[in-house]
């Protein structure tokens, strides 16, 4: 309920912000002399920009919740046709990267926490902090100038070679050409998100290390690794909720990365739409990003209630 209300307020703010924009792209066309004012009036009426502001607002809300995003102002085709494939491209890049980094970094973090003060703990923390602190596009630029421009091993631009023209999802995403374009942005994402998972897993194992249930396990004669397994299972809770929160924030987190690698995802679509003053596309992209955050925050709360026996589902 609160989530629904939040979504409504958030989209209203987005609507208000976009209406504050001083000019629409058509006025620019008049100024440049390519359209007469009369023609502009006609186009504005066609897009419904002449209706009173509250009519526009209700139409906007109604359209968003039926996932009808209107027609792009600059590309003359439905915004859905632009946004949905971009969204898929982003998800194909990010979800596997996030899952991989969550698993590897969490395991490494648990091991680091168990061996507190060890060489492995110190160095893994410093290394992942470097990648976590450095903005993701800077990491991306480093990878680009080393592996693409320096060594020439991997392509630098886009999702496929310019000559390739695959049809359908399978042909698009399952090919060597795609894989080559995939490696660098994938690596940058994995490195960027490794730090948070590692620290969370490490901290929560450190917190449990002195606890009594582990002393019992030690007394039972379990090996070090078996004890770590028990401690690790108890540390999963913050990791799972954090994973959900991160997934919600993903789209906004990688806007710069998509620009660096020219990955045709939703972040890059948003930046281009803003530069072209294509408001319907901007609205749709920002809405999807906001929705992702809200939905995943709710998921995190529910997962928390489900996994932690001390929290009742009704408390959420």
């Amino acid at each position, binding site marked *: 309920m609160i989530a629904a209300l939040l979504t409504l307020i958030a989209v209203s703010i987005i609507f208000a912000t976009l209406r504050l924009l001083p000019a629409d792209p058509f006025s620019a066309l008049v100024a440049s002399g390519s359209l007469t004012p009369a023609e502009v009036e006609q186009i504005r009426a066609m897009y419904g920009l002449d209706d009173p502001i509250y009519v526009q607002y209700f139409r906007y809300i109604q359209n968003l919740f039926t996932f009808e995003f209107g027609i792009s102002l600059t590309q003359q085709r439905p915004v859905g046709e632009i946004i949905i494939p971009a969204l898929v491209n982003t998800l194909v890049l990010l979800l596997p990267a996030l899952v991989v980094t969550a698993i590897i970094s969490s395991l490494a973090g648990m091991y680091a926490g168990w061996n507190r003060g060890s060489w492995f703990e110190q160095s893994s923390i410093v290394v992942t902090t470097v990648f976590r602190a450095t903005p993701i596009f*800077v990491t991306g630029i480093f990878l680009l100038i080393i592996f693409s421009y320096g060594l020439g091993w991997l392509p630098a631009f886009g999702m496929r070679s310019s000559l390739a023209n695959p049809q359908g999802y399978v042909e698009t995403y399952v090919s060597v050409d795609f894989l080559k374009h995939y490696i660098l942005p994938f690596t940058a994402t994995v490195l960027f998100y490794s730090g948070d998972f590692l620290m969370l897993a490490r901290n929560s194992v450190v917190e449990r290390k002195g606890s009594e249930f582990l002393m019992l396990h030690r007394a039972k004669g379990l090996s070090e690794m078996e004890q770590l397994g028990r401690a690790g299972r108890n540390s999963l809770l913050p990791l799972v909720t954090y994973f959900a929160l991160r997934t919600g924030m993903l789209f906004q987190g990688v806007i710069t990365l998509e620009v660096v690698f020219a990955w045709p995802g939703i972040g890059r679509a948003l930046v281009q739409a803003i530069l072209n003053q294509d408001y319907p596309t901007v609205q749709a992209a920002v809405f999807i990003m906001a929705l992702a955050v809200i939905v995943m925050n709710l998921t995190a709360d529910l997962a928390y209630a489900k996994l932690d026996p001390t929290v009742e589902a009704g408390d959420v």
Partner: protein
Amino acid sequence: MSGYSFDTDTAKERLRSELGRAGRTLRFVLQDNAAKAGFAVIVAFGFLGVFGPYLAPYHPIEDTLQQGGSMMRLQSPGGKALLGTTSFGKDVLSQFLAGARPTLIVGLFGGVGTGVLGFLVGLTSGYFGGRVDEFLMRLTDLTFALPFLPMALVILSFVTPSVWLITAVLVVFLWKMPARVIRSEVMTVKERTFVKSARARGAGHTRTMFLHVAPNVLGIGFLYTAYAVGWSIVAGASLAFLGFGDPTTTSWGRMLQQVFRSGAIRTAWWWVLPPAVGIGAVTTGVFLVGRAFEEIVNPDLQTDKE
């Protein structure tokens, strides 16, 4: 001395003891080697931010380097330009030195603003509870729901970005992070006996809040301010890289944007490396110090160190 009013002597005394505590904490943090390196980077960066523009051998934007009557385009390092030139014939070293300042302003003021605003909201919300808390927390929920970078891009697309405006936008979107953490800390502190006895002796809300509760959550407040400095630098550089930075200044993010847009990134490594390394080193430095500090502030990590 009655001590019921907020007089200057008490304030001075408190301030002195807090400063002493801060000094001891800093020494303790710097026992960590990574934090030591991070701190050195931050100090060097602060120096560049203040004095960089005066050290620059040329003007970063106005001076176009000439050689034999023609513009020095994309010159590799050496000779007149120690770190080479850009494709517009500007000196990379000068741009790097001058570019530290906007990065420092956005990071420092964005971070401190975020820390202070978040601290005050969290303190008020946690201390008073009830309706005040309800209202402030719904407000933070709302700012969580608005995606930061996309909204910042939209806002900056219709106003001319300036360093100060960008800083303000960052504070508006980032304060929620410290606010939540401070609030939950305050809620545990305010139940403790010394807070209740202060109230029982007749101390007002303001006094109790700032003199009795606040010092106990100051550590967390500083920690999140430090992280906020890191986030602000990252966010400022990201905006500049996407082309939404202050167009009148040279920042490291803007240098990266120019080398990327011009396509010179393929060959001109001397133009890419200084700003990229600069941004990476500063944010890493901030986070390394923050992390070492967190080990002290977070009591759950204080278990047996054997």
